[in-house]
């Protein structure tokens, strides 16, 4: 009994000494270790890449990337700026890529006369590009079948 009391006391004491040190090291605010008086680290300003030819896919199911800027494009219930060039009715005149026919099916597999609601908001899958470097090294390579030779 006596031994147990002593060991508990030792644990409590040790914890009291170690925990504050550990705690201090672990807690870090979102702005990093920058002191409150110092200026925060400003993220680098990235600009959208200018218009270019369509970008190759890296894997078969990849939603194609947007090879142009889309600043100020209105995509809401009343109008979808992307579809004014990429819809089946407009792609020829606009010389744009037409949207895939998968975009007309809803989640029950029913095919609609127009783009299904779940596929209507383009930037959920398709994104424009900045010249951002990968955050971690990556050795991924697309399969030969979709690589241009």
């Amino acid at each position: 009994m006596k031994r147990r009391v002593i060991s508990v006391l030792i644990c409590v004491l040790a914890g009291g000494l170690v925990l504050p040190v550990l705690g201090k090291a672990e807690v870090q605010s979102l702005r990093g270790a920058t002191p409150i008086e110092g200026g925060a680290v400003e993220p680098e300003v990235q600009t959208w890449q200018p218009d270019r030819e369509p970008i190759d896919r890296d894997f078969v199911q990849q939603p194609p990337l947007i090879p142009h800027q889309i600043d100020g494009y209105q995509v809401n219930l009343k109008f979808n700026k992307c579809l004014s060039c990429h819809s089946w009715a407009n792609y020829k005149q606009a010389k744009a890529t037409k949207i895939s026919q998968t975009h007309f099916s809803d989640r029950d597999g029913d095919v609609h006369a127009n783009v299904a609601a779940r596929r209507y908001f383009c930037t959920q899958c398709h994104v424009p590009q900045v010249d951002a470097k990968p955050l971690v090294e990556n050795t991924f390579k697309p399969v030969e079948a979709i690589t241009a030779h």
Partner: protein
Amino acid sequence: MAIKRSVIALLFIGFIAGILFWGGFNAAMEMTNNEAFCITCHEMKENVYAEYRTTIHYANRTGVRATCPDCHVPREWTHKMVRKIQASNELWHKMMGTIDTREKFEAHRLELAQNVWRTMKRTDSRECRNCHDFGSMDYTKQGRRGRTQHEEGLAAGKTCIDCHKGIAHQLPNMGEMDPSVIVGEGQK
């Protein structure tokens, strides 16, 4: 002699009154022809102005800004007077409260937009061309898409508003004009 003097006095008074009247007229014209005046109406401030503030005509990399009258009031005197007289109709609807709530504005958005598009089509987008002129436009400095579209557009005799709709304000429901640009609703 007395008659001659009174004629001169009359001419002088007329001259001064003319200056005052013309000066006052121009001052009133200028006063009602700037953005600060346009957004004294909440209909403008809370709808079209708020939308315009997010677009390239409000803020851009070069710092050139087009304000309301730059696009919506002609610069040339006669056309400007015609537009100013038409504006009396807008005052009437302001009094009637035709678009005094967001809901009423949305209900009229298509009609209002079509009025502007019709005018711009008729005038060959005259107000756009105060700044954007085909003659001083260098296609080689444009992007892949813009270059092709501008070359084809010029050749086909199109005018700015034919393609550049909804660049400074939100578009109304465009499904009526092009059913392929809106979401499919239940129609299977």
